[in-house]
């Protein structure tokens, strides 16, 4: 049913990601980060990547490891600087990585727009701040807005709790974060889940990401790192 493929290994799941791709990477800090997919992407070797993610890596795992491997040309994120973002910090200060800082809500809404076929939208966030400089502004009904454009991914790598064999997804607690939005915003969405269950096992009322948004699924044990840092 549908066209979601359930794969055996994370390496199969990330096959074909081209150099220069824009990759949306789920997770808020470490919660919901698709560690196995990122590790497989490092092995796969794609380089010159643009990464869209809320943060720019913690410690030396997950996204930080991808950055450390020198595969990332550019990062769009809301909060690169954290107590343990030293890998990113070093790359940035030495001019080896580009950064576009996007307010967290605009980041989510711009990806939502990409997935929803919206050409652009007027957001009240960041009006009058340095992050609105150079952007079109408009007053609508007495309030000021900035025009924001979609962020579309070639690939999304996200983590979820369970998938059924059609690719329907449910998440767990605040690890849901960017996953459902990124799944809609990428041409190819690749998901690692804790469990793959038979079709009919998920409550149709509680499916968060319908399988239409999911191209590849691989099961992987959750790896948890609790890091307390600034957002």
């Amino acid at each position, binding site marked *: 049913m*549908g066209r979601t493929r359930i794969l055996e290994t994370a390496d199969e799941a990330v096959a074909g990601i081209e150099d220069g791709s824009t990759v949306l990477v789920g997770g808020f800090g470490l919660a919901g980060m698709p560690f196995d997919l990122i590790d497989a992407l490092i092995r796969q070797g794609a380089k010159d990547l643009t990464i869209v993610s809320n943060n720019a890596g913690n410690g030396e795992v997950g996204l930080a490891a991808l950055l450390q491997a020198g595969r990332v040309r550019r990062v769009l994120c809301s909060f690169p600087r954290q107590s343990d973002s030293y890998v990113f910090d070093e790359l940035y200060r030495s001019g080896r990585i580009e950064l576009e800082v996007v307010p967290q809500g605009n980041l989510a809404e711009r990806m939502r727009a990409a997935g929803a*076929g919206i050409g652009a939208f007027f957001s009240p966030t960041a009006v009058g701040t340095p992050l609105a400089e150079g952007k079109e502004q408009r007053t609508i009904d007495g309030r000021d807005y900035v025009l924001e454009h979609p962020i579309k991914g070639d690939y999304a790598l996200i983590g979820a709790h369970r998938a059924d064999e059609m690719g329907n997804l449910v998440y767990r607690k605040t690890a849901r974060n960017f996953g459902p939005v990124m799944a809609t915003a990428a041409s190819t969405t690749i998901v690692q889940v804790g469990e793959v269950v038979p079709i009919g096992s*998920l409550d149709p009322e509680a499916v968060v990401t319908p*399988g239409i948004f999911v191209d590849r699924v691989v099961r992987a044990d959750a790896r948890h790192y609790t890091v307390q840092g600034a957002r």
Partner: protein
Amino acid sequence: MVHDKPLTPDQLAAIVARDIPEGAYVNLGIGQPTKVADHLPAGSGVVLHTENGMLNMGPAAVGDDVDPDLTNAGKVPVTELPGASYFHHADSFAMMRGGHLDVCVLGAFQVSATGDLANWHTGAPDAIPAVGGAMDLAIGAKQVFVMMTLFDKKGTAKLVPECTYPLTGVACVSRVYTDVAVFDVGPSGLSVRETFGTTIDELRERLYVPLEAAAG
């Protein structure tokens, strides 16, 4: 199966069903397009979307299966298949507008040579305008198939140089399935993929649009 006569509505539905890729996500418009579901082969893996908020919709409900909370976009009671999911209208139309559906099958009053679609309004001045999801569906899939008779009851062609009825969408139709021929709408114009009981030359005589034979 070789068809050497114009197709019946059921035969036409079967031809459309044949061309829907395995595992595709598909929205079937109200009316004739609904019939396509009956002709999808077992194991096609096709998943039906209904824009009122559901994926993996099943056949029409009968008897005790009728549930007033479960209808299709035509407000006909339907059923739910395993693996279904429900979502609200903004998410459902985001799914369409965002280009996530593979195929949408629609009826039409007219289709133009460049793929413009007219299927919501006859332009009659006393008609109460009502568009529903027609304009969203018209731009809401990777491929938009139209199903219609090629001529109306008076013999007037519905595949036209330019639509005379009010438009539903511009350059949005990818393929036109009719009772006598199937047309691809491409950047260089219309090409005829197959004919049923007619020939390209006969079609050229009756239509006011340039026609190519489809390659391959």
